[in-house]
């Protein structure tokens, strides 16, 4: 029984946490690709930027959330989403739009986005310093211990307050995105432009508007993902290093250009990571009596050590590109 609790704490909760963060990041990558046809490498830094905005606002008004009973960082998230959306639109205007106007190949935009990565990272580092900082400036991180109603279950299921916010915000973001893409006029026009840009233009759809809306959504989602990650652990200016590979792996696993695929891909990558670093010895230990005597279980049965977690999305990425380059949902090949 306690093994099950251990599994829930270390795989189910932990996997859903990273899965949600990757999913929200990957949706932005996939939307940008489907509208502008390039891999936006600065996306992970837009996530860091969003989290940094939350940090700045929270440091400026540390007690703002207390009166409403929510952590100040969560209260500041909508504002940070707006700021990051504005940043994304601004970056497009300054860097990518002139390149598009010249009709450059997608690879030029990709290299341009690497430049934007360096700019953003440098700027954030300049103002935040290089160390990690908690987004819980004035608030206390609540930890909920839920005892299971079973006999013999001694250890509780542990969920932290930011994780609960994370699950709720992820569900709200996914539902909102679904409604936007399928019900709203602009959302449908976005899908239309992804399908056939020439025909979208011939239908009277203003493609510049759609591009701007895409950046706003991608920027706002990036702010959510970056903030949720920083809430769960801490804010660091180099968060993007650990996010870039998983979110691109998630977008490609799901099939580039498919928002729902990116969500599924995010959870595939998130769970693959946690399952790979999970110590399976714990689940086998109850059966150790029935195992043959010559088979002694090593104390650590994880596939890879925690420090090598980042190789998991890399492995998934390579495997998908070799065996199924269109991804699970038949997307476009980058």
């Amino acid at each position, binding site marked *: 029984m306690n093994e099950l609790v251990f599994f829930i704490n270390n795989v189910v909760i932990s996997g859903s946490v990273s899965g949600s963060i990757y999913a929200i990041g990957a949706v932005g990558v996939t939307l940008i690709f489907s509208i502008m046809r390039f891999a936006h490498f600065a996306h992970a830094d837009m996530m860091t930027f969003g989290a940094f905005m939350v940090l700045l606002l929270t440091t400026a008004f540390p007690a703002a959330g207390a009166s409403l009973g929510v952590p100040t960082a969560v209260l500041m998230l909508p504002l940070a989403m707006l700021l990051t959306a504005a940043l994304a639109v601004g970056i497009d205007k300054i860097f990518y739009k002139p390149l598009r106007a010249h009709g450059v190949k997608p690879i030029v935009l990709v290299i341009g986005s690497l430049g934007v990565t360096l700019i953003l990272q440098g700027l954030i580092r300049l103002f935040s310093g290089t160390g990690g900082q908690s987004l819980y400036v004035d608030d206390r991180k609540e930890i909920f211990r839920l005892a299971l109603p079973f006999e013999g279950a001694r250890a509780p299921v542990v969920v932290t307050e930011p994780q609960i916010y994370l699950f709720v915000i992820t569900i709200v973001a996914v539902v909102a995105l679904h409604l936007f893409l399928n019900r709203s006029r602009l959302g449908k026009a976005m899908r239309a432009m*992804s399908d056939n840009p*020439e*025909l979208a*233009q011939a239908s*009277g759809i203003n493609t510049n508007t759609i591009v701007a809306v895409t950046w706003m959504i991608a920027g706002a989602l990036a702010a959510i993902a970056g903030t949720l990650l920083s809430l769960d652990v801490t804010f660091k200016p180099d968060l993007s290093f650990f996010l870039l590979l998983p979110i691109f792996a998630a977008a490609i696993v799901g099939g580039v250009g498919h928002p729902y695929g990116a969500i599924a891909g995010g959870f595939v990558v998130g769970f693959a990571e946690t399952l790979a670093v999970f110590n399976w010895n714990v689940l086998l230990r109850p059966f150790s009596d029935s195992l043959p005597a010559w088979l002694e279980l090593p104390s650590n049965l994880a596939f890879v050590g925690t420090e090598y977690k980042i190789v998991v999305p890399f492995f998934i990425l390579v495997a998908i590109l070799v065996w199924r380059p269109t991804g699970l949902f038949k997307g476009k090949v980058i």
Partner: protein
Amino acid sequence: MSSTTRPLIDAQDVHGGYGGMNILNGVNMTLEADEVGVIVGPNGAGKSTMLKAVFGLLHVNQGEILLNGQPIQNLPPNQLVQRGMGFVPQEKNVFPSLSVQENLEMGAFLKPQNVKRMLAQIYEFFPPLYEKRRQPAGELSGGQRQMVAMGRALMAEPSLLLLDEPTAGLSPLYMNEIFDRVKQINAAGVGILMVEQNAKQALAIADKGFVLAAGQNRFTDTGAALLADPDVAKSFLGG
């Protein structure tokens, strides 16, 4: 001059092409508001190119195109849609992953208040589309796709509909159906300018026919006169 006497489309001496190379070398075309105009000619004559020039998809280097007396050459397509033009390309004429209904809605993107009323009209006009309204347009047959494409263009209530080879690749049954629909759309007061490979059938419903060759007008007359002209028949209609 009152607007009633202005032709719907008036193109004079149009030169244009891609990347500095001219494909059109002085095309003239005049169409009245209630007419069907058909562009025919051999491959490479610049038929589709002329249609694209009218719809702003191709740079016009010289000459003038007037829509209801207003110059429109080199305006972007979304502005032309606003001014009452609808365009149905020959290939890739639907949004494959969008449902039939979403395809149609995109046609009324600039006139969202029209959607409900126009959807009802389009479904009445193309009944098969109503049954398939929730299906992705990419799953439809060629003829049904053509209906979706025409329906999408009609959603914005254009005064001029441009059709690029609407019957290309269709079975004779669908071909007749599409020609019938074109006649009905025209009868409802929409001017039609279409490029067609099936020259004889198309000229039969044409008020005006334009035979292009090497980017210039070779013959310009009423559809019936062109069909009766032995020179046209010999060189362009296969005898």
